[in-house]
């Protein structure tokens, strides 16, 4: 596969980033230290290049109906300027992607999907909307996506935009200018902190990136790579496609049944309606441990000597200082249940806990 790079590639190299391949994209893994970047977002703010994420425009008089038919949530009920986290599933109900849909106008939506699932999402939206008056356009390579996340994000951003940030609620978006660059400004994120995601034209990305870094100098805003993005989302208990979410699991198997609106028709409705009547086949639980040794993805989880599942993501939590993990298990496990995880041959006690592991103040 040809390796793709974002419009900010030169910026990353100039900043000395360690680069990594992620879903066919050359992305910054870290600029300095995973932990320093993680802590910057928890304590101040961090700037992320997320331009690898798929940006798909859905427009036309039946755009809302087309998306309704394709996704588990009835996004036609979204008001303009609002966003929704939802899923695309197979006709059997298996998760093909988790994504965010922004309603930009009556007849226009933006779908932000995982980089690894871009082709699938574009293909499925196209196929599923064939009978509707709608246009599906993959804008990924002509757009950039920059996230500014952390308790001081709003204060930094306010110096660069006339938009009323107090009025921009969580999971809302508004077209505006930031540092003179036209953007779609959304109050969304994947870190567990307050923050923003800015979609701009690819050609304006560098200007926007530099302006935000400069505006953030006093607040000590730092560039953050994908390594800290992963540890931040895990502390916030957020699932990652390919780890917690796969096409072998339904939304009910990962505790996301609330996303499924069974009162509208969509591909996978029949299968999910049947699933909704049965106990879930799998459960996603949080685990926490002691010491410094992380239980990592793939490690087996035991309950009273019997294997009940495996870790899907696990780290030593930079904020909490102890190991945290998400695990897929085959039965319901209540909070405080003691389990054992095989950490490379060492049986290690962990305790079931309800995510998120970290919750910001206020």
């Amino acid at each position, binding site marked *: 596969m040809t390796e793709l790079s974002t419009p900010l590639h030169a910026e990353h190299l100039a900043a000395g980033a360690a680069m990594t391949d992620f879903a066919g994209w050359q992305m910054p893994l*870290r600029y300095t*230290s*995973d932990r320093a970047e993680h802590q910057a977002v928890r304590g101040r703010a961090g700037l992320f290049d997320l331009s690898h994420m798929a940006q798909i425009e859905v427009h036309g008089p039946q755009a809302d109906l087309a998306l309704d038919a394709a996704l588990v949530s009835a996004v036609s009920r979204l008001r303009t300027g609002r966003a929704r986290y939802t899923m695309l599933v197979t006709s059997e109900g298996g998760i093909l992607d988790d994504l965010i849909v922004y309603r930009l106008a009556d007849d226009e939506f933006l779908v932000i999907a995982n980089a690894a699932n871009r082709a699938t999402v574009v293909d499925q939206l196209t196929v599923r909307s064939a009978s509707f008056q709608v246009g599906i356009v993959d804008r990924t390579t002509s757009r950039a996506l920059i996230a500014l996340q952390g308790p001081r994000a709003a204060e930094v951003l306010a110096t660069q935009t006339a938009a009323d940030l107090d009025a921009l609620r969580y999971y809302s978006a508004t077209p505006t200018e930031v540092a003179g660059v036209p953007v779609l400004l959304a109050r969304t994120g994947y870190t567990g902190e307050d923050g923003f995601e800015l979609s701009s034209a690819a050609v304006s990305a560098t200007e926007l990136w530099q302006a935000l870094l400069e505006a953030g100098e006093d607040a000590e805003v730092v560039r953050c790579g994908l390594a800290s993005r992963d540890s931040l989302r895990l502390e916030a208990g957020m699932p990652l496609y390919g780890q917690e979410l796969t096409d072998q699991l339904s939304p009910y198997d990962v505790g996301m049944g609330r996303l499924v609106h069974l009162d509208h028709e969509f591909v996978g409705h029949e299968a999910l309606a049947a699933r909704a009547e049965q106990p879930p086949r799998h459960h996603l639980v949080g685990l926490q441990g002691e010491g*410094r*040794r*992380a239980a*990592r993805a793939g490690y087996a989880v035991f309950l009273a000597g019997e294997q009940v599942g495996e870790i899907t993501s696990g780290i*030593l939590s*930079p904020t909490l200082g102890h190991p945290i993990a998400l695990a897929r298990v085959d039965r319901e496990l209540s909070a405080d249940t003691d389990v054992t995880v095989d950490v*490379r041959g060492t049986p290690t006690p962990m305790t079931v806990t309800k995510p998120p592991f970290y919750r910001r103040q206020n």
Partner: protein
Amino acid sequence: MSLPTDRQYTAEHEWVQLSGDVARVGVTEYAATSLGDVVYLDLPDVGTQITAGQTCGEIESTKSVSDLYAPVTGEVAEVNTEAVDNPELVNTDPFGTWLFTVRTTGQTAELLEADAYTALTQG
């Protein structure tokens, strides 16, 4: 980056400083940088017999777990508890942070001089 020339290196990105029959072992700056933030060290216990070229411990970073390989054969004489308690020392001062020492029989893995190791990491 210029490497200390008072010691030798392995292809597994460890450094070894031999003094008489005692070998002091750490990991290189290259290893520390590739690993990212080191959060846990699983080092062999004092008294353990280790064999050159075989795994003898683990070094765990925020993102991954890597094996430590014994660069020499012998008995583990000391373990650096300061490094165990503060694994981030591996990142901040890799060449000043020894992990363990070995009373060696003289058998070693292939050891490289600084320039040969530099060539390896730049290849």
